[in-house]
């Protein structure tokens, strides 16, 4: 199978993830959609790496995984502290600072 198909899949996953960020209301689900976008990036990187026959893309994918893990640590800490003080993780409820 042509590796280009994996690029289409990566683009599709990225689109699903970014749509999810825009339409979902729960901060945790929004965050999961962002993780999906990062995974789509990884798939694209690895596919390009295969097509070019060099390893750069695969190495970047490892870095992305580490970054995603660090992001989870920071992000969950922030979202959980918000949830504990409001008993809601909805991004619509977080509207203290509307104009």
């Amino acid at each position, binding site marked *: 199978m042509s590796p*280009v198909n994996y*690029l289409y899949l*990566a683009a599709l996953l*990225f689109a699903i*993830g*970014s749509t999810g*960020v825009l339409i979902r209301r729960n*901060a945790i689900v*929004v*965050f999961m959609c*962002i993780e999906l*976008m*990062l995974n*789509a*990036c990884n798939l*694209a*990187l690895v*596919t*390009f790496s295969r*097509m*070019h*026959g*060099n390893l*750069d*893309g695969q*190495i*970047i994918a490892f*870095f*992305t995984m580490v*970054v995603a893990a*660090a*992001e989870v640590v*920071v*992000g969950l*800490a*922030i*979202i959980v*502290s*918000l949830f*504990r*003080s*409001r008993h809601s993780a909805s*991004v619509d409820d*977080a*509207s*203290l*600072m509307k*104009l």
Partner: protein
Amino acid sequence: MSASAVHSLWTTAAPIQKIDAPTIEYAQLLPTLIVIGAAVVGIVVEAFVGRKVRYYAQMFVTVVALVAAFAAVIGLAAGGHASTEAQIAAMGAIAVDGPALFLQGTILLTGLVAVFTFAERRLDPEAHGNRVDSFTAQAGSVPGSDGEKAAVKAGFTTTEVFPLALFAIGGMLVFPAANDLLTLFIALEVFSLPLYLLCALARRKRLMSQEAAVKYFLLGAFSSAFLLFGIALLYGYAGTVSYAGIADVVDGTVQSIDPALADTMGNDALLLVGGAMILMGLLFKVGAVPFHMWTPDVYQGAPTPVTGFMAAATKVAAFGALLRLLYVVLPGLRWDWRPVMWGVAIVTMLIGAIVAITQTDIKRLLAYSSIAHSGFILAGVIAATPDGISSVLFYLGAYSFVTIGAFSVVTLVRDAGGEATHLSKWAGLGRRSPLVAAVFAVFLLAFAGIPLTSGFSGKFAVFKAAAEGGAGALVVIGVISSAIAAFFYIRVIVLMFFSEPKPEGPTVAVPSPLTTTAIGVGVAVTLVLGVAPQYFLDLAGQAGVFVR
């Protein structure tokens, strides 16, 4: 697959190739290494030093590290690394050249001033006999809960802010110097993640602070995912992530395209979409319209010292990275990105200035003003000339100190609920405390770009470069939006000096020498760069050449 088959796979794999150890020019990376190293030391201090002396230990480590790193930057610049000796270090990952060193110096100085405001402990009234700073007693406690009260009573403090700030500064030092897309991405995350946390740590108005952190985090992570996908596409386009390598493919100087890769390599769709996505990620960080929506909420909700730090240092780092990307990687694509950036700069200047007029909160007002300033700086970026680079460098240096100074003044004006940020409470401040109001007026005049302040020299340099670079229409719009912006800056000054103070109005806290230093440095830089900018313009002019 049986066990023996696996074994034969191992033994028949290709012989181990010798991998050469990379050569790292440690001396040239010294500023970053000092700051990151001190951040790690700060973590150890946090773990092992007693609660009473931790604050002083952290302050000592942080200040010494920042001063040492600044000395290292000066040393590198004096050694000619900013001009003749400029080169690419760490196997092509980091550029050590004029713009990188200039911006690193600026980030370190603004970081040092910001750390002074972080350490301020005289503004809030003492809680149970303990002096407290702007940061929450215990970030994990629920606002208003018994746990929080117990933490305040026990005198807990969040001294983690110092290592967090150091990590953020470390990432910011790498960001404008990154010379491949992977380093760019990692540096972005290294400085963003601590900032998300710092936003959530306010002592007062904690719900707002947490909300600001969630918004900043979700939108920041969203934008960095776009940046990463853009990196993937550019990698697919060029087959490399190094800036010079991509630029060669863009320019068409690489002629030997492997036919097997012809599908992707040199495919313009990948280049255009990938470049646009990376620009989106960077424009989010500089707060340019239409990626500015996070700015007012985050600036308002974050603890004010953090807001000042973020507004100043993040902008410096992000514009540095944007300049390098546009001037080193994509100069061959100039005719494609210039019209887009024109549009972004125009809407950024206008929307920042116009929406600021309707604001009633001083921190939101400064946030929209920072959006408008992003637009002015973008005008210099668009010039695409050496003057464009140096004018942007100068503007960033001038703007960052004014910003930190202005937000430091905001921390001083307080009422029972903490900082009194509503504009109506600032009425008559000039009658009650003329000095503070006068200092704030100086900063506002600098934001407005009135002559004899650094804002004027900066704006003049940027608009001159833009006009010479063929962006005359942009300059006209820039001047118009400066005039709009001047209206609301002057309105605040009028409010402070020409209206009657309210009897129940806020008080002005007397700061410790720490905040006084921060404000004093802001005023001094504003006036020196306004009255005698030539030396610094020359400095920025000499620094304005990228190594490739």
